[in-house]
């Protein structure tokens, strides 16, 4: 490989887009060429600077809520789109199998909630509905995690300025609940932290949100294949959502309560 070939391939090489054989050829050339090595270092530094210093603009509060509201308005219009059923096969292809099971369960739960709406406080049910949707998002492998790390010294600072409270995320990998990462979610119009854990084959979402409620013991809901536990402590509400088994989740809840 000569210098001009190297310069052509260098971007793809640094972006991890080069096949292994070509990548090796670039590395070999770099080992022998000071000028291309300098170019490579400069590009690497530029990439680092862009990724760490460029702004990723954040929408104002309630952005997702506004999108969802406009969707509900469009969906209940009885507009033409609703006339045709969703191409189910395509959708199944997109969602991983395990998540599809969760999705079916979520649909059941939504149906249950819809039938249950009368006679109980509405806000709670709406929250449950959005919590299940929120958890199902945790099982989506593409883009559902905004900060991917098992290190609380990475995850907690990331939430600073994104949510108005300390999240206090911890990794419990030794106890079987490995921290995968987190993201910001809108819950009842306020930013909340969603932490994603992996427990064997199951995904567990822990939502942390501010609350005015006084401290409370965990309250369990066990419906349609999902288990939700919610409790308040020190002005923060924590909600655990998962399709993992109850005993494991109870142990996890105890860990979280001991740690927070």
């Amino acid at each position, binding site marked *: 490989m000569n210098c001009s070939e190297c310069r052509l391939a260098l971007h793809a090489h640094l972006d991890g887009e080069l096949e292994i054989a070509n990548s090796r050829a670039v590395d070999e050339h770099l080992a022998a060429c000071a000028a291309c090595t300098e170019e490579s270092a400069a590009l690497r530094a530029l990439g680092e600077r862009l990724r760490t210093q460029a702004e990723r603009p954040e*929408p104002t509060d309630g952005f997702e809520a506004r999108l969802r509201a406009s969707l509900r308005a469009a969906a209940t219009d009885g507009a033409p789109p609703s006339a045709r059923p969703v191409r189910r096969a395509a959708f199944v292809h*997109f969602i991983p199998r395990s998540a599809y099971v969760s999705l079916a369960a979520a649909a059941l739960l939504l149906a249950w909630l819809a039938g249950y709406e009368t006679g109980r406080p509405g806000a709670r049910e709406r929250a449950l509905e959005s919590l299940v949707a929120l958890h199902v998002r945790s099982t989506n492998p593409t883009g559902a995690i905004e900060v991917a790390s098992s290190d609380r010294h990475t995850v907690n600072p990331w939430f600073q300025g994104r949510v108005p409270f300390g999240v206090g995320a911890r990794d419990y990998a030794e106890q079987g609940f490995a921290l995968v990462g987190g993201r910001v979610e809108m819950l009842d119009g306020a930013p909340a932290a969603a932490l994603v854990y992996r427990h064997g084959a199951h995904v567990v979402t822990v939502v942390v949100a501010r609350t005015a409620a006084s401290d409370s013991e965990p309250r369990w809901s066990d419906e349609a294949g999902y288990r939700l536990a919610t409790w308040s402590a020190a002005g923060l509400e924590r909600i655990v959502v998962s399709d993992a088994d109850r005993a494991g989740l109870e142990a996890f809840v105890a860990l979280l309560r001991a740690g927070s």
Partner: protein
Amino acid sequence: MTSADRAAAFEIAVLPHARAAFSLAHWLTRDAHDAEDVVQEAWLRAFKYYDGFDGGDARAWFLAIVRNAFHRWNERSERAETVRAGKSSDDESDRDVAAAAASRADDPARLAERASERAQVNRAIGELPLDYREVVVLRELEGLSYKEIAAVVSIPIGTVMSRLARARERLRDRLAATDRDSRGDDAEARS
């Protein structure tokens, strides 16, 4: 499937990408309010065409719709002229952009901003022509693969590579120039 189910399925597939969509729209429009308008339009459009979605990469699919919504907005917009100023890549428009940056630099608040490296990086990206800006944002900020960028922008992968290379070259030149400027200012301040 009822329309409520359809909306729920759409939301699960697409809502996780709303923030990436906002970031892209913001970098294209350079305005938070316009960015939300663009995403809002794209969101409903995506819902309308969701039946035609092949079930592949939802993020790339949605970002492509956001990009198209931006171009429609850009054509409609009264500000089309200012936004388009960055689009042509000839020297004249570069001079315009440089002149605009220089006139802003007289403002004391702008001087303070210039001291910040972050502001320099953001300005350098913001001043890229649209064709270059979008590939840089998709690659460096949103972490899309070349293949995904090709799908969002509807260009061949080879064009993704060459645009990225040229965009990065410009960014390096621009940042090297602003770094030199701020060093020059320091020297002036000391003398």
